[in-house]
């Protein structure tokens, strides 16, 4: 088998991201809740810029997701980053199609006649 250099690199990125105690603490903070960068920063005796750099490292490793809400950036731990792609989609698509069915049938109720 040829060695697959991409995968260990991916793991390395994650392990490196976790090698820093501040970044591990950030993950703990946003494990179950979404927080703005400013609020995360108040937990540390670090500059907001330093915290922002830690957040960037974690984001690149796929460990957290970033959402913009106006000028604010909100962060949350990304559990799906732990799942293999296939396992993620195996559950994702059936759920999504069920939501599609509900949406279409709610938007276009069948009563033998069109309703507006």
């Amino acid at each position, binding site marked *: 088998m040829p060695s697959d250099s991409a995968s260990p690199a991916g793991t390395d990125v994650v392990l490196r991201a976790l090698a820093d105690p501040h970044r591990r603490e950030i993950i703990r903070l946003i494990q179950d809740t979404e927080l703005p960068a400013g609020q995360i920063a108040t937990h540390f005796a670090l500059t907001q810029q330093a915290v922002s750099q830690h957040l960037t490292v974690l984001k690149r490793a796929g460990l957290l*997701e970033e959402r913009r809400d106006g000028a604010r950036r909100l962060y949350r731990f990304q559990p799906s980053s732990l799942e293999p*792609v296939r396992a993620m989609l195996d559950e*994702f698509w059936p759920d999504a199609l069920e939501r599609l069915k509900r949406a279409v*049938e709610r938007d276009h109720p069948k009563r033998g006649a069109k309703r507006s």
Partner: protein
Amino acid sequence: MTEPLVTEPVTASVRIAASPEVVFPYFTDPALATRWLADAALLDARPGGTFALDVRGNPARGQYVEIDPPRRVVFTWGIEGRPDFPPGSSTVEVVLQEDGDETVVTLTHRDLPTEDYRRSHQGGWGEFLGILAGVAASPLSSS
């Protein structure tokens, strides 16, 4: 896109009490895509057009490949920021089959990361989970 990818596709289907004409735009119209699939959508429904959805915070990115209303739509799919599953790296085919006054939607998601790749990642994530468990068990007291 030269490497042959052999991973078994993910498939899913659903039966909907509406015609294909009614169902089809839910895959191409941003206002309808956000009713079931995405929190936000930027869709340009023509071959080569942008397919960009935010799905539970995951930035799903790709392009439309084929659009044949109301029967079939094909788009690529990947997640921005996931090196193992980059934007455009996999393909989703959606087929709408009319059955009486209903539609059977069949979705096939192909060209997913290979089994080898996945296995090696599973090892990687297992390792990571162990570390995270350790972290959770002994939280840092920095405050």
